[in-house]
């Protein structure tokens, strides 16, 4: 009798609206930039690509083809992928440790992954080795943070875990400095430095497609685990008594979240704040239920980074590294939402 009051339509509606919004921002980003493409020209380009009919000059079409396929599309895909990976991992780490103050950045994952990736760049040209090392050290970093965080008597202390993350993050930042110190100052060092500032522009389309498989796999996996994450906030014993395998869920979730955030570091350097702010804003808007929070974090994390990237491309004639920009945009937003966010998690 009461069925009609709530089925999943509300949840699906949020997801649909988010996806449409993301697609709209992506489409807009495709047209905007140093060389704006108007709608009419874009339609002519599509016409040319699909039917081979050239309505406008062939030189213009070739230029647009180059801009879209070589520059804008890879960037847009990467921005969405990286933003989604960071925000989803942030939401999952927060659920996992029942701690609204953690994110891949705060737990030291990004620092660990960047150390691993830098080591990889030092010893090998192989993309796979860089990724594998980034993930391994991202995992070591979060493990180290948890170890320090649980050293005290109270293993679920919010502050201790954050402190553990700060320590772990500093450790790997120092180790990274060592790598930089020994790196070739004419070739490897500048590469590492610019990459670390965060950039969406270096990646090629085929690299992106390759890395998108494990990232999408983790995001999707985490999105389906939302109902289990909700139980974890009740404490381990109660979660077990409600019928879930707490240890397995913790391990799987930490692996997926670390994988997604470490790979984002390999592709785009250290991009802070997305993993902390986006889950907070979503939680404020729709409540704490992870069933919806995790997938919506993916969508809006992608949208946020896409917007930030658009600003970075359009605002000034010189491109601001995206990692710096997300901090510059993220910090004021976080300060603004902090008061409400506190209410939402208490």
């Amino acid at each position, binding site marked *: 009798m009461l*069925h009609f009051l709530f089925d999943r339509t509300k949840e699906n509606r949020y997801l649909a609206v988010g996806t449409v919004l993301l697609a709209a921002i992506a489409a807009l980003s495709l047209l905007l930039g140093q060389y704006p493409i108007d709608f009419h020209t874009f339609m002519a380009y599509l016409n040319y690509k699909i039917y081979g009919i050239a309505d406008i000059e062939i030189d213009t079409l070739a230029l647009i083809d180059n801009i879209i396929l070589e520059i804008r599309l890879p960037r847009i895909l990467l921005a969405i992928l990286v933003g989604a990976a960071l925000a989803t991992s942030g939401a999952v780490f927060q659920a996992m440790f029942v701690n609204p103050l953690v994110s891949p950045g705060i737990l030291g994952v990004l620092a660990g992954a960047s150390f691993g990736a830098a080591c990889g760049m030092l010893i090998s040209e192989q993309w796979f080795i860089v990724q594998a090392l980034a993930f391994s050290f991202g995992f070591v970093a979060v493990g180290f943070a948890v170890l320090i965080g649980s050293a005290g008597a109270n293993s679920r202390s919010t502050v201790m875990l954050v402190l553990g993350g700060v320590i772990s993050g500093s450790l790997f930042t120092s180790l990274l400095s060592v790598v930089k110190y020994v790196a070739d100052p004419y070739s490897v060092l500048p590469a590492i430095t610019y990459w670390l500032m965060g950039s969406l522009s270096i990646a090629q389309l085929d690299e992106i497609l390759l890395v998108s498989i494990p990232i999408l796999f983790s995001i999707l996996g985490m999105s389906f685990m939302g109902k289990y994450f909700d139980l974890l906030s009740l404490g381990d014993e109660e979660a077990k008594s409600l019928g879930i395998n707490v240890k397995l869920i913790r391990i799987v979730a930490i692996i997926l979240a670390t994988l997604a955030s470490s790979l984002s570091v390999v592709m785009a350097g250290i991009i802070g704040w997305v993993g902390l702010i986006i889950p907070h804003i979503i939680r404020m808007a729709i*409540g704490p239920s992870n069933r919806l929070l995790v997938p919506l974090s993916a969508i809006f994390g992608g949208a946020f980074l896409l917007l930030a990237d658009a600003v970075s491309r359009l605002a000034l004639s010189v491109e601001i590294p995206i990692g710096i920009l997300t901090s510059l945009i993220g910090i004021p937003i976080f300060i603004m939402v902090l008061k409400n966010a506190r209410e*939402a998690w208490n």
Partner: protein
Amino acid sequence: MELKPIIEVKDLHFSYKKSQILCGVDLHLFKGEVVSLLGPNGCGKSTLIKLILKLLYGKGEILLHEKSIEEYSHKEIASHIAYIPQYHHVPFGYSVLEMVLMGRVSKLGIFASPSSHDHFIALEALKKAGILGLKDRIFGQLSGGQKQLVLFARAIAQEVDTFIMDEPVNGLDYGNQMRLLEFIDELSREGYTFLKTTHYPDHALLISSRTVVMNGGKIISDGKPGEVITAPMIQDVYGVNAEIITHDAHKRCIPIFR
């Protein structure tokens, strides 16, 4: 026909950091019973409950429907027993309905979300607990009594017939304590089985069909509440002088100061 117990505990031992918490506990729980576990702080009541729920591992045998608890996953245990903890702080502002829906998770497939059927069950459970009106409120903002009722509703939504409770009335005011006991009594009449720990001999006298007294990690008596709860037992276990009086054919435990 001999009745088979739902839960059977045989010669259970448990120690933590070299100190013996349980030494040779035997217990059984039959369908329809309301069993109160009585005993002083640290006597091993809560440990016993956690062992039955497989939240701790001890030495000895625990059978659930005649099968060792070792053979059950937590998911399977959750389809037989609902655990109602003391109300507590829950981080993040989950709504009451969301809290109750958490009781349905063990019934869902890996990729499934709660369906409209699950929502329906959760609402029926809230209705049964008399708190349907609270469904959209934030759990953390409720009073202690309301929170405890939400945890009851969650257990009902689990669709099991056995409830295990750890100090269900702890921290509640007198009125809420009595209303909760009445609610337990009501549910037991519908056929639910209860195993609960309690600090109050009076509560055991009020609603239990059997009372088990523990002290120092052992069960020292097990029987009808009126027979088990006696002045010497209260003196022995709690070191309190008490008088057991009969009022309206019901026994009551009255503490006496000297």
